[in-house]
């Protein structure tokens, strides 16, 4: 994996996602630049990271959960 690819994966591991005009959650721009095999690797790394985030959080909430709850609460 190249350095640039590693940086793309790190961006995809983030819980931030852009929204479309209707407020729908869209794919991370960096995800589109990854080849198929690295998209799968990014998904695996994201899952591992979310599990650790949830395990570290007193309420068991991962970054995904917090991002979604922020949207629900009007963020």
């Amino acid at each position, binding site marked *: 994996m190249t350095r640039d690819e*590693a*940086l793309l994966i*790190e*961006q*995809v*591991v*983030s*819980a*931030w*996602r852009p929204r479309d005009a209707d407020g*729908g*959650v*869209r*794919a*991370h721009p960096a*995800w589109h630049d990854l080849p*198929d*095999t690295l*998209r*799968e690797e*990014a*998904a*695996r*790394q*994201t*899952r*591992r*990271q*979310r*599990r*650790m*985030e*949830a*395990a*570290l*959080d007193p*309420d*068991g*909430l*991962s*970054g*995904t*959960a*917090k*991002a*979604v*709850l*922020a*949207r*629900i*609460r009007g*963020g």
Partner: protein
Amino acid sequence: MDQDLDAYLPDIAAGDPDAFGRWVAGAEDRVRGSLMGLAAHVDVEAVLQETLLRTWQVAPRVRPDGRPNALLRLAIRAARNLALSELRKARVRPAVVADLERLPEPSAAMSGPDPLLRRVIAACRERLPGKPAAALLARLQGPGKADRDLAELVGMKLNTFLQNVTRARKLLGDCLSKRGVDVDLELA
């Protein structure tokens, strides 16, 4: 330990975001897991977040069907349908979509990390050096924020921030491995 997350359904249906948070804490990994077979074709994180938002919206109309985890089973089906819809929009070859449609529906059974494991992960996180620790903390505290904004908050350039997050995650993984923790197995 199996848990019926529908225990939260009445409060979720009444519009309580905290109850939905407790449901998400138990359901997220199962819904994410159901999408992993599609990860080469869709951004799993985006599909998952959209699914969870839609689950919140439809929850007031969900009625238990006598089996546990009605809302979780609905979310897993919704996630899969949303992912397949994204595939069609992206004009993925119909034969590939048909293959993916035939994948078996994942189970809604689940478990969670034990308290000892939580302590081991927390101990490993405390051992992270300054900049990787700061970058990871920014990610943990600002999950809905773009990396560019988080990098600015901790006084790093974007690439430096990303490299520090990567380093933090690697060091955390190494520390857990040394303590005999396989995150993929133990937290599944």
